[in-house]
């Protein structure tokens, strides 16, 4: 057991993967001597050399496109996209090539590329540095999408992503990079596509992932004082969804509030709400509610506290669900 920040847990996970498999290579802008703008790759180029920790030209489509080529040659590239809003120049390569290559080849080739995307707001950054584009990628078949919320998951899920033969996008909650937690270096918590009840409760299920899991736990602690018993579910995997775990929880509590930083409209919460309505209709005491971002471009940072779902907005959602 070791106490690590999420960023350092990711570093440790990648270091372990690189030690175990010489085909694992890292690629990205500024990931070499600098260690990445968030220092997630710190020290790795020094130890593994520039052929395995590859500083790239500043060209996102080029990074993802060449990563695909490397994977076709038998390598397992782990790509760092510097910020969420910078992924779009590579969107074409991700959607038309990376996601479809296995299918196009009828399974004869594998493209085990991992894309790491630091995402979400709360850092006071300028435009394009605080977005939550996960729904855009969840809609695309061929990709696996995960988002760890704590150091232990970060350490294990990045390794599971690297070992997976399919392309995996890891949405990393960048405002939680420095949050420390216990990491069990021996025992993986569970499969990267499993959701997990992080706090059991009886009155309402509060479903979150990535940066909002901790906020949801804080909301559960606050609601406890008002006598509301919240179950907090950490989704962990955005594609595929662990529907059995979600449905089980909702059937237990009868209420579901979904929260994410991304805009509510056409977001992941809508998909989950529809599926829960289909599978748990007779168990629901209230409509499935969503608490998330507005249908707006991410605002200037002086306004982001109003944009992002915080403890109060989440509790308001819980109150609305309880009022039925």
């Amino acid at each position: 057991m070791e106490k690590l920040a999420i960023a350092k847990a990711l570093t440790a996970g990648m270091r372990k993967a690189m030690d175990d498999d010489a085909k694992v290579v890292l690629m990205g802008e500024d990931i070499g001597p600098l260690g990445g703008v968030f220092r997630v790759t710190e020290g790795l180029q020094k130890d593994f050399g520039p052929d395995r920790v590859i500083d790239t030209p500043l060209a996102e489509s080029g990074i993802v496109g060449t990563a695909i080529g490397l994977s076709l040659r038998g390598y397992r590239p782990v790509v760092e996209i510097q910020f969420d809003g910078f992924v779009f120049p590579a969107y074409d390569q991700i959607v038309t090539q990376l996601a479809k290559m296995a299918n196009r080849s009828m399974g004869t080739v594998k493209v085990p590329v991992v894309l790491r995307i630091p995402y979400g707001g709360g850092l006071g950054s300028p435009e394009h540095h605080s977005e939550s584009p996960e729904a855009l990628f969840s809609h695309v078949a061929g990709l696996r999408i995960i988002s760890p919320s704590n150091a232990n998951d970060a350490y294990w899920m990045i390794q599971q992503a690297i070992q997976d033969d399919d392309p995996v996008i890891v949405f990393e909650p960048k405002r939680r990079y420095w949050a420390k937690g216990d990491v069990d270096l021996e025992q993986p918590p569970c499969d990267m596509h499993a959701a997990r009840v992080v706090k059991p409760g009886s009155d309402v299920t509060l479903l979150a992932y990535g940066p909002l899991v901790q906020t949801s736990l804080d909301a559960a602690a606050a609601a406890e004082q008002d006598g509301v018993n919240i179950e907090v579910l950490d989704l962990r995997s955005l594609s595929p969804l662990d529907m059995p775990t979600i449905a089980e929880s909702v059937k237990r509590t009868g209420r579901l509030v979904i929260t994410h930083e991304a805009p509510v409209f056409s977001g992941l919460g809508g998909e989950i709400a529809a599926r829960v309505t289909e599978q748990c209709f007779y168990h629901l005491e209230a409509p499935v509610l969503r608490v998330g971002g507005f249908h707006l471009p991410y605002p200037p940072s002086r306004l982001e506290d109003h944009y992002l779902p915080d403890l109060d907005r989440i509790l308001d959602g819980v109150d609305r669900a309880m009022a039925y």
Partner: protein
Amino acid sequence: MSIATSSNAPAPGGTDEVPMVQLLTPEGTRVDDPEYGKYLDDVDDAKLRDFYRQMVLVRRVDNEGTALQRQGQLGLWAPVLGQEATQIGTGLAARPQDYIFPTYREHGVAMMRGVPPETLLGMFRGVSHGGWDPTENNFHLYTIVIASQTLHAVGYAMGVQRDGAVGTGDPDRDTAVMAFFGDGATSQGDMNEALVFAASYNAPVLFLCQNNQWAISEPLSRQTRIPLYRRGEGFGVPGVRVDGNDVLAVYAVTQANLERVRAGEGPRLVESFTYRMGAHTTADDPTKYRTAADVEVWRRRDPIDRLRILLETDGIADKEFFTAVDDEADELAARVRSACVNMPDPDPTSMFEHAYNGPHSLVDEEKAWMTDYLESFASEGEVD
């Protein structure tokens, strides 16, 4: 008054004023070349006859593809008519270990790499998005989005470097990667990023531009103001233009450049200057965007005709040879036609098989639903 925001003048280098490597003139005469001539040392009479034969076979398959589309057997076909010399010259210059990334028009290269032509047709018929194992003959699947594959080629070449399969001096080990693309692709961001990455990492990749003058209906002057073989210069990738309708020149220049790439000298660009005689695909109508006179100029540079003249005048092939090649082409066409029209539609649930390599709960669930749904019709039938 017209607004001078664009130029409709022919692109510089769009015509023949730019020098290019030519080893066989349109009149069928051999040309000596001090630099590239030696790359024809292995081309004896038998090989010359084979060049001719391969070009005829490709043309016949291509014509069959167009005919099958017109008859409703294919959803679409991308004709390669007129570009046979480039296809055969490059395809035969590559070694087995070289890995090739095509666009969607490399039918001749595909055949040289052992992909059966009926498999190619399957893609245009709609039974698969490819249908061949790219690792079997190191020939990747067709890529339809323009220039995407140039980056895949560079990445693959970076892998070749890491495998130590470049610059060893072992001709069976040293590997080059070839990226095919057209004149239109040179306008894409990916193409330009591929040149940056290739130069920056000194990747063993040969960029093979088939300049066929037209990107659907957009002429070369819409893609460039300089000859395309120079497009790599600003990135540090040297280039050369070759007469793309001269199979000897294409074969020699491709070999020469592949050799340097395999030796670890870094990326290179070959512009094969040719012409698409047919439509971009069977969906467009070239008479709307180009003149018959233009086409006629290029008809006189036909790659097959010029080699035939050489074979005839130098007594390398006789009448029986030409008859035999035509017969073989007819047989191939008949085989391809029959395979195409008899190609069964895939099983409906097969579409769920390969979206992911591993199990995926959503896909598995939807596949199970689809299977039950289809079976419900079968059981209804049994009741009746």
